[in-house]
């Protein structure tokens, strides 16, 4: 009997138009992830890790190949279906936090729950809970501009986790943080992974992040070089 994976990619190819030709960022990748993994796509710039993360996050489509993400075939996903999948089951953490600057910390974390149409009381409870996880409950009225980089990234983690998604995709989450903040953020994510069995998938080349990973997938020029479990 075939095992059911959280993410199951088969022969994924991604090409980008470049001049009159095209550039192939992913060259037929086969990868599977199970629920609860704390894994990372590791490689230098241009290795295809962010491209793969975008395809898994349904923000982009593969040029060839396909597979399933959270049970949905990604190659046939309509824009509205992809949006619904992201809204309900996928969280994103970005290198530059991508917080909504004019919103407070509370409103930033509340945003995914607003999209889900959750009632106000329940929303408030969950937002404060999520801010508790990242240790920022007392800063819920602050605006992103009043926070440090580490605090901003913790708000981004709270925003990604507040709806308790099945999958969190983190693209270079520590690239803008110093060592102390990086460890703080990574420990927070590790704890959340253990507490909720949420699958975390990173795109990184930061040694600090790599040291926390339980599965390390090395990419080079759009190809899988090594898949190592710790």
């Amino acid at each position, binding site marked *: 009997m075939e095992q059911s994976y959280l993410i199951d990619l088969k022969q994924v190819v991604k090409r980008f138009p470049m001049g009159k030709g095209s550039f192939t960022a992913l060259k037929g990748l086969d990868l599977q992830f199970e629920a609860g993994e704390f894994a990372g796509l590791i490689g230098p710039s241009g290795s295809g890790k962010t491209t793969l993360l975008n395809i898994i996050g349904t923000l982009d489509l593969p040029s060839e190949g396909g597979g399933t993400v959270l049970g949905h075939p990604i190659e046939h996903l309509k824009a509205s279906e992809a*949006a619904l999948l992201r809204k309900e089951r996928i969280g994103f953490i970005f290198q530059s936090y*991508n917080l909504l600057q004019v919103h407070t910390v509370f409103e930033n974390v509340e945003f995914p729950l607003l999209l889900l149409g959750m009632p106000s009381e329940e929303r408030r409870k969950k937002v404060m809970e999520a801010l508790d996880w990242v240790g920022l409950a007392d800063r819920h009225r602050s605006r992103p501009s009043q926070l440090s980089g580490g605090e901003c990234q913790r708000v981004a983690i709270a925003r990604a986790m507040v709806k308790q998604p099945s999958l969190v995709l983190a693209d270079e989450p520590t690239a803008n943080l110093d060592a102390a903040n990086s460890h703080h953020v990574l420990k927070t994510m590790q704890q959340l992974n253990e507490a909720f069995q949420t699958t975390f998938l990173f795109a990184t080349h930061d040694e600090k992040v790599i040291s926390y990973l339980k599965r390390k997938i090395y990419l080079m020029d759009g190809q899988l070089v090594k898949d190592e479990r710790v």
Partner: protein
Amino acid sequence: MKLAWLLAWRNLMGAGLRTFLNVLVLSFAFVMILWMEGVMVGWDQQSKEDMRAWSIGAGQYWHPAYDAYDVLSLTDAHAVIPKETVRSGLVPVLATQASLFPQGRMMPVRLNGIPSQQSLLKLPTAALDTTMDAIPALMGTSMASKVHLNRGDRVLVQWRDRNGTFDAMEIELVDVFQTTVPAVDAGQVWIDLSVLQELMMLPNEATWLTMGEATVDSERMAPFVWKPFSELTRDIDAMIETKSSGQAVFYVVLLLLAMLAIFDTQVLSIFRRQKEIGTYVALGYTRREVVWLFTVEGSMHAVLAALLAAVYGIPLLWWQSVVGFTIPMDTEGFGMAIAPTLYPVYSLGLVVTTFVLVLITTGLVSYWPSRRIAKMNPTDALRGKIQ
């Protein structure tokens, strides 16, 4: 939908001064449009009310040959006043072409005979009920000024009777009245009806009959033909419509200024907020929903402008409706019923129509640049790579 309004509200509030300036400009356009339209409506109402009071009452019965724009029609436009006239309280007027000779020059005028006892129209005809060796006459201030006559002055008037025979006599100006209705002022001389009937050798005849509020059996008014109030004020409607069309240019300019500010803000927003747009998509919005969000955000300027306009506009417009707007020039030469001070009239319909107009325009201006979002690649937007 509700979420888009909530987010738009938060984004606009977060944008602070930029939002305030856009809203201020738009609210100014909003108040100005309301005020200008209010002046037009007020002018329309005031003109019609003045016409009713001074000239046409609730409507008139015209001799079939009478043409208000053809002075030559007066020769044949007269008939015996129907008996129904007395019962219904109609005011008969006999009119004829005549010439006035002030200071030795000749001036064509219309000589109107009206019963001195009438009280339906505001013309001070009671002054005509006097005995002297000249014909007592009335003129409006505009006419009196044009012929350089004052109360008590005498002037020679010449007319032709029913047989076409010229006759002349002096009239004495017993009163000069102030009116905003040129139809009873410019080129008009008023004398007592019975006197004019005698001069014209047209006993008990009239050119038109002005009606008050009483009902009249039209069949018993033959040969006079009914001209309702709406028909007699059609020229005012046409004139107001023309003026309103002219004013539309101002509205367009005002709205353009406000729309330009909003358009610029939208274009800048979409360029500056690429990462935010990408984030919305990553968090579960479709691109179409983001387009909607930005459109709502732009359109909300109109809602905020209406609120701001209410804050300073309501007292301002109310004050204007009380003290009126005094036209900074002589209105007598306008050739139409226009009071020196116009009192704007605002209706709920006017406010709602203006708001809807501003909202739709703002919505379109907001949507136009926002359409670009639908073509954005979210992964590029997230990295702020779109030029």
